[in-house]
């Protein structure tokens, strides 16, 4: 569409030019050979100098710049990759150390617990034994005390009753007869007092 308009207007403009200026202009200045040699000369000169400058100095510099940038970027990427690998390795090592130390700590804890438990057990046994012994001794003592108790009570009872009789009656009573009575009483009532 744009192209069509473009070419149509070129056509019409050429038409217009012919109509309006055919009389006064001597055709296209491009076809006037007066300055052709000069244009060729200056074209070769300027283009030649530009070509030499570009090809010998500027383009190698640009290509060098591009090349060095590319290689530097590649180098940086490589270095980054290497560092990443290193850090991955270090991370792995670190993880290993942590898991190892965890295991170690666990085993140490277990050992300590077992040791403590053992010690506690041993101490408990010793204490238990001691307590048992003391209890047994105490029981023995109680037993002997209990065994001796009726005799002592009898004796006290005989003495008390003889003194009592002396004070009441004023005569000396034969101890042996009193003891016989007390024995008899204690035998009869012993079960009631001592619970045996």
């Amino acid at each position: 569409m744009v192209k069509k308009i473009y070419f149509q207007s070129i056509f019409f403009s050429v038409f217009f030019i012919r109509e309006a200026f055919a009389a006064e202009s001597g055709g296209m200045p491009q076809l006037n050979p007066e300055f052709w040699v000069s244009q060729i000369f200056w074209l070769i000169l300027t283009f030649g100098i530009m070509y030499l400058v570009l090809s010998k100095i500027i383009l190698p510099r640009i290509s060098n710049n591009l090349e060095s940038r590319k290689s530097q970027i590649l180098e940086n990427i490589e270095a980054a990759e290497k560092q990443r690998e290193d850090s991955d390795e270090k991370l792995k090592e670190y993880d290993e150390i942590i898991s190892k130390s965890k295991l170690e700590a666990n085993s140490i804890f277990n050992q300590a617990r077992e040791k403590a438990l053992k010690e506690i057990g041993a101490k408990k046994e010793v204490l238990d034994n001691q307590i048992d012994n003391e209890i047994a001794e105490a029981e023995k003592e109680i037993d002997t005390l209990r065994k001796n108790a009726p005799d002592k009570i009898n004796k006290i009872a005989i003495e008390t009753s003889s003194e009592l009789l002396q004070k009441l009656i004023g005569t000396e009573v034969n101890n042996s007869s009193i003891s016989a009575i007390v024995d008899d009483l204690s035998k009869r009532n012993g079960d009631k007092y001592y619970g045996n």
Partner: protein
Amino acid sequence: MAANPMSQFDVYRIGPEIKVGALDISFTNASLFMILSTVSIMLIFNLGSKKNSILPNKIQLLAELSYTFVSKMISDTAGSKAKPYFAFIFSLFMFVLFCNMFGMIPYTFTVTSHIIVTFVLAAFIFIGVTVIGFIKHGFGYLKLFVPSGVPAVLLPLIVVIEIISYLSRPISLSVRLFANMMAGHTMMKVFGGFVISLGIVGGWLPLSFSVALTGLEILVAFLQAYVFAILTCIYLNDALNLHH
């Protein structure tokens, strides 16, 4: 002076007449704009390649983008064998582009709107490509005119057509650029003339057209430089890699 739309293409002497023997090589406005174009190319690309920083500044980016653009164009159309001709095609592209673009500035002269300039460039390319073809392939280069897979009856006709099309390359290459430049600039001048003649009342329409044309012409200026360079690459490809 501005009334004639063709007067913008006039070449005139600046300074004294310089003659070497019978040849007139005077400095003209065409020479002035050739120098301006080449000097600005050298300046821009010199600035763009001076400092090599990893993060390029604007002018360095411009130079590097142009470099990769042209090098990609060459490797896409002519392959890796065309690498030695990179500098020439780059200079050619930049020269045509800058001449075209300088022509877009009002009151300037468009170097590429002259058939003699474009023809010298095209003829140089044509001769160069033909010489490269004969150096690379010897007389085998003539196989370019004999396409494979053509029936024997048609072969004489095809060979004649191929030879004519090959010989018309410099003409088509030069006329394409010259005619595009001349037509565009003439048309802009004509519409500019309409603006003046129609005055404040009716001049707005050709003025808006002129503005649109300026944009189109800038596109054409770039496109013609690109076409000129890419056709050179295609001719070079024919000479380097004989496919026919």
